[in-house]
């Protein structure tokens, strides 16, 4: 069975009909009224959701609406539309790897209704002009909302602050700033950035990587890197920066967000910072919740990512941190790369993995099926909290009457191998290729308009 082609062929457990719209002319994107019957809410109870004019008009049992397209959602879970704080859409500059249109298509298939586009494009998203361009491209694509992340420093060079205020005031209304891919390693610059964004309730999302400790680094420094002869990326290079930045955020009483936390030590430091009441939030990627550095034994660069895959001890700590809320959310760090940047020797390959389409499935595998998180927890970590961190108002809301109809219908009983060739993304660098993962996104609604129906893009 393929990832996306399941519904046409599956005969088990009624998945073939899940999400199929029962209208005479089949799925209709234009339908203004949708009645979702019997979806389990995050709290566990099945109920109906009536969507009209972009909002949830009514919830409850036995709802009816004349002319509504009806979705039989028996056995499906309704989650608020997922929000990704960390997506590389590559446009402008690397349209060979991904575009806003292809990346948001992948996002919709993964159940996301909002993604934050990282700033390391070419040119970098370090001016109001570039962030507005990306924001507009997202509006045109229409499948999920695109919130540009602004660069902290000009050209991500780590030397001079970008015009953070101009980006905040632009049409894109940027609230998250990051030099992701590079660390804001200069302590003074980091302090100033943290202070400056307080004026518009911004947050600095730090890619924590001490540069000197990670020169030419290839893989988590430990048993595997030593054995494989790959230059080590030590945990301390992440943890030292996180510790410093937590102290800086406390000192200037500003908001700090830690990108892609990957080590057990980082979880401990963040737990400590939170215990002090400091305004620190953190994200973890799906791949760091499931994979370890042992996969690098094949030297296949599909497993090369920054920060690197760590050890089983780290995976356990990250899962525990996400479960107890020390880590606020899951963010994909979706990092598409063309084949030629991955079909190489390990050392010259690009860092990064795609992740939008598999994120929810990996979280089910790593967190739900292990009993660490229930579906309410998933809704919190993949929608509510990331929306709060990004200060998004139209996303991450509980599925109640009056809320914007941004939601995802998910079938947790399905299980299928990941087939990268079925992805609308321009890139195929998923480390989960061929892996059997649970779950399937059946439908995604963005303000009442379906971007995915019956597991397929509309």
């Amino acid at each position, binding site marked *: 069975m393929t990832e996306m082609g399941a519904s046409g062929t599956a005969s088990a457990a009624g998945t073939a009909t899940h999400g199929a719209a029962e209208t005479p002319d089949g799925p209709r994107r234009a339908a203004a009224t949708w009645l979702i019957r019997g979806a389990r809410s995050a709290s566990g109870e099945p109920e109906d959701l009536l969507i009209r004019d972009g909002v949830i008009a009514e919830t409850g049992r036995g709802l009816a609406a004349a002319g509504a397209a009806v979705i039989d959602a028996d056995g499906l879970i309704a989650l608020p539309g997922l929000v990704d704080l960390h997506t590389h859409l590559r446009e402008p500059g690397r349209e060979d790897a991904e575009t806003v249109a292809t990346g948001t298509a992948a996002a919709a298939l993964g159940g996301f209704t909002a993604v934050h586009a990282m700033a390391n494009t070419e040119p970098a998203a370090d001016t109001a002009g570039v962030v507005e361009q990306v924001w507009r491209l997202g509006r045109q694509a229409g499948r999920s909302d695109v919130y540009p992340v602004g660069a902290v420093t000009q050209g991500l060079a780590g030397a001079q602050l970008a015009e953070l205020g101009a980006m905040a005031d632009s049409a894109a209304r940027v609230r998250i700033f990051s030099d992701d891919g590079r660390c804001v390693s200069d302590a003074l610059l980091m302090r100033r950035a943290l202070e400056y964004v307080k004026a518009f309730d911004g947050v600095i999302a730090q890619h924590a990587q001490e540069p000197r400790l990670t020169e030419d680094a290839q893989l988590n420094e*430990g048993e595997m890197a030593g054995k*494989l*002869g790959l230059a080590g990326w030590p945990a301390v290079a992440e943890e030292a920066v996180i510790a410093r930045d937590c102290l800086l955020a406390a000192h200037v009483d500003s908001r700090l967000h830690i990108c892609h936390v990957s080590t057990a030590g980082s979880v401990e430091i963040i737990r400590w910072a939170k215990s002090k009441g400091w305004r620190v939030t953190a994200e973890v990627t799906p791949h760091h919740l499931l994979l370890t550095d042992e996969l690098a034994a094949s030297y296949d660069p599909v497993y090369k990512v920054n920060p690197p895959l760590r050890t089983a001890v780290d995976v356990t700590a990250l899962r525990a941190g996400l479960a107890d809320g020390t880590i606020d959310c899951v963010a994909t760090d979706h990092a598409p790369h063309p084949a030629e940047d991955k*079909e*190489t020797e*390990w050392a010259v390959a690009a860092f990064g993995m795609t992740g939008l389409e598999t994120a929810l499935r990996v979280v089910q595998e790593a967190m739900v099926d292990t009993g660490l998180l229930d579906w309410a927890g998933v809704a919190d970590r993949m929608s509510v909290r990331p929306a709060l961190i990004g200060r998004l108002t139209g996303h991450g809301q509980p599925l109640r009457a009056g809320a914007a109809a941004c939601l995802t219908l998910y079938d947790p009983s399905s299980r299928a191998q990941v087939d990268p060739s079925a992805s609308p993304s321009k890139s195929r660098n998923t480390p989960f290729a061929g892996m059997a993962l649970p779950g399937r996104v059946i439908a995604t609604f963005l303000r009442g308009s379906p971007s995915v129906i019956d597991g397929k893009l509309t």
Partner: protein
Amino acid sequence: MNRHLISAGDLTRDDALLILDTADELARMSDRPIKKLPTLRGRTVVNLFFEDSTRTRISFEAAAKRLSADVINFSAKGSSVAKGESLKDTAQTLEAMGADGVVIRHSASGAPHRLAGWVRGSVVNAGDGTHEHPTQALLDAFTMRRRLGRLEGLRVTIVGDILHSRVARSNVLLLHTLGADVTLVGPPTLQPVAVDTWPCAVSYDLTATVPKSDVIMMLRVQQERMKAAFFPSVREYSRRYGLDAARMGMLPEHAIVMHPGPMNRGVEIAAEVADAPRSTVVEQVANGVSVRMAVLYLLLGGMAVPA
């Protein structure tokens, strides 16, 4: 045995002994007036060298030619690789030429693994980055066995830049398989952080280790390591981790001194040590050809070695 020789760790004890025993037989052949054997006639061996190493390339070339294989030398310098051709494209070219064996030397760890996924022929790792150099370990084991008569229980001390050494990695794996007791010695900065998980002992004290060694193997230390603060100065390195005449005098009488070459005389090894009778440096070079003949012969499956 595997189709490829990429890591010394892939060899079972029986595999390793078969290679050493075959090398013994082949070494006897090379004492004959006509050194050439017809065993790989009609087979093509490509020496794919992305990193300069005249010694290793010549050794493999001599080995393949003595087995009558057709040898193609491919050096990355001045080739399509210099023009940006990828390893995968190079692999496809080799496939099209019908290479039965590819000997690869590359500055990137894991390049032979990648190549093995793209070609049908046997891949022999002739040194990849800071990962492994399995034929070096085999020729070292061969040399030890010839000089000392056994490998089981042999106390082998490997000294120097363990962190960046493919020779050390392959030797630790192979010698462990063959029952020797390996001790790695070097400054803590030049030992991998998880070296305690390797099947060997670790020490920072060369002077204390020397008297307990049947074999002492000195690794080349690159002077540019000093710039990255691995050690303060070449002189200090030499004082603490170099093998000079005084330290050599502390070795047991039967002990041998090895070096994979090229040597930095006066840095990790003093000139009088390098040229001492117990130094096996030149023998190692000669043994390299026999061991590589054995590897090519066993991997490429030639005709039986004539008695």
